[in-house]
């Protein structure tokens, strides 16, 4: 080390540089960015490109395709032309992916639904991380009774299958909303799926955090801080937290992927996002009845879910590698 050398960049910057060199992770990030941007621009798409209103029923309407007026609900292609099916993928900007059973533009609904799906899953992941970090750090650092109470509570939650747990909670809250004294949450509020999904995944995130903190508590630099008379809250904040932040960052995308799947499942079961609002889960449900005639209604949002979940997992792996580089390879022997 020489005195003239410039101070090194921060550890986070080093990790981000390492992540930027990871092409797979960058591709995943690009996919996520494109999908997020598309969903953010959903109103523009609906108004200027598709020129449809994806939230009102349009079973009696018609659209102009190649100069021809075409009904949105089309007779089925059985010999007697019995029954009606919504229009399939048109290959035009309007009704690009066809219509659902209500005659609404599926493509526009997928973009709108993506807003809810992404918003709920990211908020749930952040809330879950926050709760899990608090629980994991408290249990790991203070140990004793705090640890026993928190860990047993987590075990109890863990004993209930995640989806069963989420479904039970959702059914109760979705039917009545939630009233806790002055706090009133409407039954159709997005807060309900966010909080429920965050809660059910807390044990899964808290356990690795607790393990990490248990190890850190024994670390000599924590003893050194105690020896210096550093108060415990400062040790938690400045010695423990920065060392679990990598764990938190790696868990983030993975939790978001899990939350997205959970949200879709709840919405598919009509106990997540409530009509007329859309999410990828509700659109799949709409498509369920059309699966033989208009499979695209269910397949398209399904594909969106798969893409986002895959990209999040790849990004999570990339983050883990990028952050591990400093922890292991650069640790002097």
């Amino acid at each position, binding site marked *: 080390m020489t005195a003239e050398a410039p101070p090194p960049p921060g550890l986070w910057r080093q990790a981000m540089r390492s992540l930027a060199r990871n092409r797979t992770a960058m591709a995943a990030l690009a996919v996520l960015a494109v999908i997020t941007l598309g969903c953010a621009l959903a109103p523009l798409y609906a108004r200027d490109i598709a020129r449809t209103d994806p939230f009102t029923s349009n079973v009696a309407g018609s659209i102009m395709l190649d100069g021809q007026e075409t009904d949105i609900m089309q007779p089925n292609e059985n010999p007697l032309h019995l029954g009606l099916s919504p229009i399939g993928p048109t290959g035009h900007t309007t009704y690009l992916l066809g219509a659902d059973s209500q005659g609404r533009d599926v493509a526009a609904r997928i973009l709108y639904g993506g807003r809810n799906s992404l918003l709920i899953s990211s908020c749930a992941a952040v809330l879950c991380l926050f709760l899990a970090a608090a629980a994991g750090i408290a249990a790991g650092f203070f140990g004793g009774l705090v640890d026993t109470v928190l860990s047993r509570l987590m075990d109890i939650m863990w004993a209930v299958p995640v989806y069963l747990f989420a479904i039970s909670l959702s059914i109760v809250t979705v039917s009545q909303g939630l009233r806790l004294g002055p706090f009133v949450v409407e039954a159709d509020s997005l807060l309900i799926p966010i909080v429920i999904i965050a809660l059910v995944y807390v044990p899964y995130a808290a356990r690795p955090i607790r393990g990490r903190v248990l190890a850190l508590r024994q670390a*000599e630099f924590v003893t050194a801080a105690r020896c*210096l*008379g*550093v108060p415990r809250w400062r040790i938690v904040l*400045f010695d423990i937290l920065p060392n679990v932040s990598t764990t938190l960052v790696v868990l983030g995308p993975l939790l978001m992927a899990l939350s997205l799947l959970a949200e879709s499942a709840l919405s598919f079961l009509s106990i997540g996002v409530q009509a007329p609002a859309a999410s990828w889960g509700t659109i799949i449900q709409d498509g369920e009845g059309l699966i033989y005639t208009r499979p695209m209604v269910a397949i398209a949002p399904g594909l969106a879910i798969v893409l986002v979940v895959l990209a999040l997992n790849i990004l999570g792996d990339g983050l883990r590698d990028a952050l591990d580089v400093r922890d292991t390879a650069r640790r*002097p022997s």
Partner: protein
Amino acid sequence: MTRPSAPVPKTATEPQSSASASASASASASASASATPLLEVRDIRKTYHLPRGQTLKAVDGVSLSVMPGEVLGLVGESGSGKSTLGRCLLRLTDVSSGQIVFEGQDITHLGERAMRPLRQRMQMVFQDSYASLNPRRRIGDLLAEPLRVHPGPDGRKRSHAAITARLHELMELVSLPLSALERYAHEFSGGQRQRINIARALALSPRLIVADEPVSALDVSVQAQIVNLFTDLQTRLGLTYVFVAHDLAVVRQISTRVAVMYLGVVVELGETDAVLHHPAHPYTAALTAAVPRPEVGAPRAAPLGGDIPSPIARPAGCRFHTRCPAAQERCKVEDPALRPVSQGHFVACHFPLTDD
């Protein structure tokens, strides 16, 4: 069970008559009879309870005094309890019984908050220079932490400028460039990191520093530099050290007095020269004989057989009798107490060695 309450010079007194050996340095020749010890421990014990009802007595009844300005070397093999003792001295590990008195105040049962102001005057340097520095914080941030937590000499929170000035002083004290403050622990060599650890321990201008094997993880050439730094700082700042080590050469260089530990007790205690050149305990004699000598053809002493016994199942009687070349029947039954062989030189042995 009686023990002298005041330093008793000259005449030999039994410092302890308990079954386990313990040492009192209050009769140390180096300290004048009127001086009060900076740190005094009385019959401290640290027992760990293991599964299946076993107990591990890491420290099994140690009494010591550390006089202001002296360097007390604690030597012993791995498992002798010297590191545990060091941590107990600073209340980083709670003792199972006994008493710790710092600057005349009993600190044995003080809580974290009550200990905090005292921490300014007692510090520790750890063995693992990497593990004792938070890898995610810059060195300047690490060194500033004690200065942010404790009030300045005027009793008020230190200003940013005062902290920066102090950091620069500390860097100068341990001979590191100021640019080191911007860096992370992993960017330094072992010796540099140990300098950083020393700087952090010095940040609050303590009186006592417990150094827990601060050089044993370093290269020999670097060891010498760090030991010299310790010595240099001691004379410049008037520090008092408890210096834990297993390397006799290091201890000989830095210590004014030496306490030799074996299986949780002090078996010999005295002036460095007396203990290392005229050892009275067969264990100390074996340790000193095992130090390689640089002369060509120097005779090598027969090494001590076997390993240190497990502190979970320590031998009855004298705990050294299983490896002692001079052990007799009495040693298997009766645990020797620490008693003086000459002024300020104590040994826990039924048959102490004499110089002839």
